[in-house]
């Protein structure tokens, strides 16, 4: 038991990677490979439940810390740990990965590498959430890109080369500045340990000269180096155009993880690194950040409404929803230390979790219908409700969660963000309401264009006959829907943990 306690995070982190390696030696039997990957991805999930059980929500700071010598020469150690914020993200990741793998059971092409990439991807994402060392953070940050690149590039749809390249180059380009800034911090303080850096970096005298510039100038530059890397990933307007392409071209499960978890890495970077490392700059530049966030909210909603491709419509909705996360972060940076900041930040973290559920669900549902019809063109749908009533019901439910209907999860987090941002960022919050209004417009457009209308004869008979969502697909949706409903009714189950961590940190 003791071993489990001291190595729990390593186990969660590396179980998928080890499973992927074992998978390499599995015989060439697609069915076996699928079930193996699914079973393997359940291990981190079960361990996360164990973690949750042993997690002390009242303790401040990180728990289950592990620290190993890693790169002694530059004093970077393998340091991982978890607090309320990262816990919620770990839970999201370990929950979504098995569902994504279950959703991928219909993949028949090159099953083994596909599943292996998914498992590697999980380790990459978990590493970012758990890292307490800047270099480790950066390593995992980049590792996550590779499997996703290949997933889009090999299993994607028609325009996959363009999309995968854009995704890869854009994210890497964005993180160049991050790498430089990380190096600078490492050189300055002789350590990459996050907890030490929180202390040292903030204790610098702003008037001092550093690298030939004043500390505040250096910090401003480094702030934007960090911020842009994460802004591309979130993505914030105007860095968002890789997202509709990547999401649309990725295979269904890829989109689920991309929207469900990968976007959260960017927002998590803001919360874990930018705000604690740059509290002063976060205050100064809060207005700029809020402006970009609101632009994402508003243009994301309009962009979504303007699409004719079902998947692109859902993809743009991510820009819209993640904009709220960044708005909450900006407000928390501006009003640090106040109740407004705590509410906005808790809302932002909860919104990350909620968007993970609803976006993954929406992409999966798009995939369900794409798999059957081989089209995503909204104009070819319409009137599918009488043909697939169960699917229709699930789609409406998930759409409503995405829309932020009170009673479901999205509302709670959006309400908290709006409440927290109102006082510090009144005008921006008011403008974001326009985005919230159009959230309704694009969601309803999606439902209207897919489900409503007189029964669609084209998909009703013969070889085109649309079949109802099957049991496996329903099983993918059930956990998501249950959590959407439960979080909407009783958000305390996760918000309490988040709130404790946020109150202690900001």
């Amino acid at each position: 038991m003791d071993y489990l306690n001291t190595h729990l995070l390593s186990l969660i982190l590396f179980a998928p990677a080890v499973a992927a390696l074992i998978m390499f030696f599995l015989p060439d039997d697609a069915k076996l490979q699928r079930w193996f990957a699914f079973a393997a991805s359940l291990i981190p999930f079960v361990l996360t439940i164990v973690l949750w059980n042993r997690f002390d929500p009242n303790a401040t700071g990180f728990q289950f810390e592990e620290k190993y010598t890693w790169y002694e020469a530059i004093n970077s150690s393998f340091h991982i740990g978890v607090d309320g914020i990262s816990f919620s993200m770990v839970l999201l990741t370990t929950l979504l990965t098995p569902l994504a793998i279950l959703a991928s059971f219909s993949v028949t092409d090159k099953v083994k590498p596909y599943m292996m990439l998914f498992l590697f991807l999980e380790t990459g994402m978990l590493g970012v959430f758990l890292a307490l060392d800047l270099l480790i953070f950066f390593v995992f940050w980049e590792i996550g890109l590779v499997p996703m690149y290949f997933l889009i590039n090999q299993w994607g749809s028609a325009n996959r080369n363009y999309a995968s390249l854009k995704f890869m180059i854009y994210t890497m380009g964005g993180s160049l500045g991050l790498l430089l800034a990380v190096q600078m911090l490492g050189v300055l303080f002789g350590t990459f340990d996050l907890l030490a850096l929180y202390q040292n970096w903030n204790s610098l005298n702003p008037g001092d000269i550093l690298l030939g510039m004043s500390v505040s100038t250096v910090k401003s530059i480094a702030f934007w180096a960090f911020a842009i890397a994460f802004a591309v990933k979130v993505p914030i307007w105007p860095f968002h155009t890789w997202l509709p392409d990547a999401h649309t071209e990725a295979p269904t499960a890829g989109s689920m993880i991309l929207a469900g978890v990968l976007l959260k890495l960017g927002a998590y970077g803001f919360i874990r690194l930018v705000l604690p490392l740059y509290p002063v700059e976060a205050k100064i530049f809060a207005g700029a950040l809020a402006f970009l966030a609101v632009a994402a909210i508003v243009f994301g909603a309009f962009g979504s409404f303007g699409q004719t491709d079902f998947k692109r419509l859902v993809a743009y909705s991510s820009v819209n929803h993640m904009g709220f996360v960044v708005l909450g972060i900006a407000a928390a940076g501006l009003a640090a230390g106040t109740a407004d900041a705590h509410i906005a930040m808790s809302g932002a973290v909860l919104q990350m979790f909620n968007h993970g559920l609803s976006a993954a669900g929406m992409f999966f549902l798009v995939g369900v219908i794409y798999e059957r019809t081989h089209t995503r063109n909204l104009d070819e749908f319409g009137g599918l409700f009488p043909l697939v009533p169960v699917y229709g019901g699930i789609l409406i439910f998930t759409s409503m969660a995405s829309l932020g209907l009170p009673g479901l999860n999205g509302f709670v987090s959006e309400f908290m963000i709006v409440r927290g941002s109102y006082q510090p960022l009144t005008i921006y919050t008011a403008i974001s309401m326009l985005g919230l209004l159009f959230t309704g417009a694009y969601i309803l457009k999606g439902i209207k264009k897919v489900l409503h209308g007189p029964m669609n004869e084209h998909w009703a008979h013969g070889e085109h006959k649309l079949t109802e969502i099957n049991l496996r697909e329903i099983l993918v949706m059930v956990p998501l829907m249950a959590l959407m409903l439960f979080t909407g009714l009783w958000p305390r189950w996760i918000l309490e943990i988040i709130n404790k961590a946020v109150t202690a940190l900001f």
Partner: protein
Amino acid sequence: MTTELLIWLIPLPPVLAFFLIVLFTNKSRAASHTVAVGAAFLSWLGAMIVFVRALGVEHLAEHPFASAIDWLPTGDTFLQIGVLIDPLSAITLFFVAWCVLMIFIYSVGYHNFGQPEGDHDHAGLPPHGATVHGHAVPSVEPMYSRFFAFIGLFAFGMLTLVVSDNVLTMFVGWEIMGLCSYLLIGFWYGKESARNAAIKAFMTTRIGDVFMLLGIAFLYSVTGSLSFEKIFSEEVLHALASVPTGVFGLSAAGLIGLLLFIGTIGKSAQFPLHVWLPDAMEGPTPVSAMIHAATMVSAGVYAVIRMFPIISLDEKTMTIVAFIGAFTAIFAATIAVAQNDIKRVLAYSTISQLGFMIAALGIGAYVAATFHLVTHAFFKALLFLGSGSVIHGMEHGVLHTGNHKVDPQDMFNMGGLKDKMPKTFWTFLIGGFALSGFPLVTAGFWSKDEILADAWAHGHTIVFFTLAIAAFLTAFYTMRQITLTFFGEPRTEEAKHAHETPWTMTTPLIVLSVFAVGFGWVGMPHWITGGLVENWFHHFVGSMLHEHSEELAFNLVPLATSLIVALGGLAAGYFTYRNVQSPAEDKLQIPVLKNKWYVDELYNVVFIKPAVWFSEVFVSQWMDKGLIDGILHLFGPATGGVGSGIRNYFDLPVINRFFGDGSADVTWWFGKNLRPIQTGRIQQYLLLTLIVLFVVGGLLYFLLMA
């Protein structure tokens, strides 16, 4: 069971019914409606017990039933949610529970339970009828179970809103109703018109909702709480009234009030967000009764009544409220006179009557507004259900003749239904008279009279006259409707074969008509009862206000006005339309009224088309694909350009030519030019050695000697 626990339980049965039907009983019609009606009955029962217990409490306003729990952790504290029954929510709960139960029962008949399945019916379209032994008979609704699931969820939303002790759960109920109204208006989603109406309803009300959300966020930021008890306490109200906001010179209270009121403008279909409500008639008629009478639109007015302590703090906001209400009352009434669809007349009349309530609140007539809210819910639910019954009867006629071109909702296709559908006729007449404010016996008279009396007594002359004219129009179009529908001779073959509807539909009509008359008696003023019976309603609901409003003294002007406009309107309506046979003979079919003052057309040009263009062209094409991606795509060629530049102007000439090839060339040149001296003759080599020796020796000599 404690009353508090019971209050928590009241909203639950309908939502459980929703889940039960969706997950389990959706294949069985009988099971589904049993579950739904049973749930409505349980909620009704709970509501009645709570209501009776509430009546037994002295000073209920000061000592309401209340209970709350920690819901949302916010930093070091919690946002609490809970339930509250005070006089206002008690009276609202009373009418909501009754209307909901009646509408649930009515729906069983309305959707043709017990009839065979249709010959060509599809999910998504209204039933078209079936053939049994060669006779056309009505067929059962294809999505029968789904309907009951939706109205169950709807009832849950309304009951949640009513029992809430805070703004947040009130908003939750409010939005759930918004969803259900969308689902129910678009119930027959196969019809293009229903589909569009559903989206229109959702989006239009959502405009109000986002303002309301902003108002809630503001309120919460300023006061740190959302529970009514805290935000309506003296010190909080005082603080809200004294904080300026810098927006239109409003105080915090004024701005919060205004933002919340915009929510009501959407939900209660006030001008300029009224456009969704008439289109919402696309839904099945029980839905119209539910959304447009008993619940959702009432919720908007209820919210204003609930937030009245804050809204009334700022004169400017109150003026806006009064203006919007009064304008809507007369504006919608003018449109109602030119409509031929039996349900659309009622829709506009609803907008207009809600305007009465809003205007009443704007002039501070709190009790009068509440009274009219309750009476209106009863008689408007009655009228909608009655019109549904009429349509049902007409559909019977249509099935009989087989002429599906005849619109069973067009009043000019009716006439003489008085004898065919007596129960519907008498109950509709009662409802119509209540709406018109027929003196003394109907509830509508007392509530409307109280609004007018209040307006007059407090010197709001403009509001008074506007509402008086609107009241006249109300009586007029109501009588027009009754005359065209029930009086005279049948104008079509279909009307001749119209048929009274089954007991499941007529029983709710009878029950509601009892309230449409009787509920007025609980709020009769002193002058009529001579003080024998106290004005119970005024006493009960008026206790909600911190400073008790005194009952008004008797004044002849508003009373006379009420009498004249009601009776005059009814008479004018009857005599104008007694002999009208077709729309051509109707002098009030003025295009501008018929086309609803062209508001829809205006919105289409000013808002909808630009928004679509902005989304599809500006954002998606120009900004994202053109500008942003354009810049990104420059990176490709730019990087390529830099790369090939380096290759062509540095790598190739400098590295390759100069260093790489250059060093080879030099070596080669030396080799080539030194080749001639490699002759292989020993004499030449020795000679060359000798020459070099001399030269080197000579050089050394001179250099060293010098």
